[in-house]
């Protein structure tokens, strides 16, 4: 009897229990787009993150087991890419551009205002769980600098923007 094989099957079952049906369906769709499981691994992490906000150790293990990838390898991938969050984040992630054009246009001063408005610095989450502030490389909107993303949305010309009004749209309960 091949015990190793049985263990693998057993753990896949655990993973299947952990992962939700919609997540599994999306992961299976990704399988049709790439020739091997390794490529699907990174996509699966993004899928889990989309549904759960971040990639916990349990999520990572479940994905690795489901796709039969070495956990350490997937962990190495997960920690390499900055848009995979290995710690919990707020409901809205603010990706704040601090690259050169935004720097020239005053992104540091605007960042200080944001930090004041929300009471958080880079890498931190507001106590109400609404926002996490993260620096990001050039967002490719340099003629309208400084810029940031809140969730999927790009916000431009922040030096003359009403920051309070922008964040209000994203607060929980806001329409």
């Amino acid at each position, binding site marked *: 009897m091949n015990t190793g094989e049985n263990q693998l099957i057993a753990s896949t079952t655990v993973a299947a229990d952990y992962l939700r049906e919609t997540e599994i369906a999306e992961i299976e769709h990704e399988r049709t787009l790439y020739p091997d499981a390794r490529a699907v691994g990174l996509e699966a992490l993004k899928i889990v993150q989309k549904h759960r906000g971040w990639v916990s150790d349990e999520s990572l293990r479940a994905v690795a087991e489901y796709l039969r990838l070495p956990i350490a390898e997937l962990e190495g991938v997960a920690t390499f890419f900055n848009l995979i969050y290995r710690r919990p984040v707020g409901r809205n992630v603010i990706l704040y551009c601090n690259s050169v054009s935004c*720097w020239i*246009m005053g992104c540091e001063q605007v960042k200080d205002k944001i930090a004041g408005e929300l009471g958080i610095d880079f890498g931190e989450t507001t106590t109400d769980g609404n926002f996490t502030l993260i620096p990001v490389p050039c967002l490719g909107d340099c003629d309208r600098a400084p810029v940031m993303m809140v969730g999927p949305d790009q916000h431009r010309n922040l030096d003359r923007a009403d920051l309070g009004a922008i964040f209000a749209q994203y607060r929980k309960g806001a329409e």
Partner: protein
Amino acid sequence: MVSNPLTRNIDLSRPPFDLAAYEAVDGYRGLREIARGLEPSDVLDKVKDSGLKGRGGAGFPTGLKWSFVPMGDDAPKQKYFVVNADEMEPGTFKDRLLMEGDPHLLIDGMIIASYAIQANTAYIFLRGEYTESERILRKALAEARERGYLGNNILDTGFDLEIILHTSAGRYICGEETALLNALEGKRANPRAKPPFPQVSGLWGKPTIVNNVETVCNLPGIMAWGIDWYRSLTKGNDHGTKLFGVSGKVRSPGCWELPLGTPIRELMEVYAGGMRDGLELKGFLPGGGSTDFMLPEHLDLNLDYDDIAGAGSRLATGTMIVLDSQTCPVGMIGNLMTFFSHESCGYCTPCRDGLPWVDEIFRAFEAGKGSHRDLAILEEHVDYLGPGKTFCALAPGATAPLGSGLRYFREDFERHISEQRCPYKQ
């Protein structure tokens, strides 16, 4: 005749053209030529003869790149075409305009390129942050599929093509084409050793061409209106038009399609409107954060690969970052060093350990603690991190603004040392 083939359909005040509207203005003509019997080698010859050079930064001739892909009966059946849509070079905002302004132009170009190298699978490697580009491209891809321009036996040619939109999980290094391939394979995005070159052994070991978005967007025009037209677009030595951008404290920052060979002064003063009131031009990076500074004395040079190279820099992405007389050059270079240091993939020692050291020295300058010894260490790093000393082009890219900045703005570095503070801060 069309003089702005890249942006002629772009008007950001309305949604981009759908497939029917795009076709009504000579779109997908290359595909129809293919359906009429144009051979892959004919397409390759046209692109070679057009003189098109890659618009992603390196400026390598596109046709020559394609010509290294094995063709014929003995060639591997599986090949890949990949679009590098991982726009992340600091100060670069041109590919976004193309994808969000005219998505079918990119798909049109991808079909032409994939046919030329006989690739049946193509990926768009798109920055994860470009959510609007993703939405617009997904819609356009669905239209193309619906119309039978993607899928099996396209227009009865016997040619099959699927285009898969891949959204990236981040990191600047993915713009390096072999790192991009690793990321697409689900691995850490460390660059690969070359040779073998991707054209022979790329994605999953198969022949692969990686081209920048803007490069690919040049192809439909070449196919529709021919080589003579394409070569007549330029004002200089290189062929075609290019997207040029200006950011920084100019009156009207923006991105425009202009003939290659347009004088830099025209871009800066006519299109970007010159410097804001009370500011003077101190210098500029001509093609993103990885290019050498140029000075006001270079304004009468042309936007041409050779002209810019003659001034010791590179045209690269063609998006200029302007340094004004009231912005600290040491601070600006320091910002770039933080960026490059953060974005090092960590694979090779000079880059992984050298860039953070350089960055730390800039933090010392900013805090008024810079010394002449530090300046000497920075000079050394221009050499230690330069071309040929590292595994890929990331660290050499960092040395471009660093080395030229030390040369051109020496006095500013000296003042940081003698005054023990940043002289630009009030």
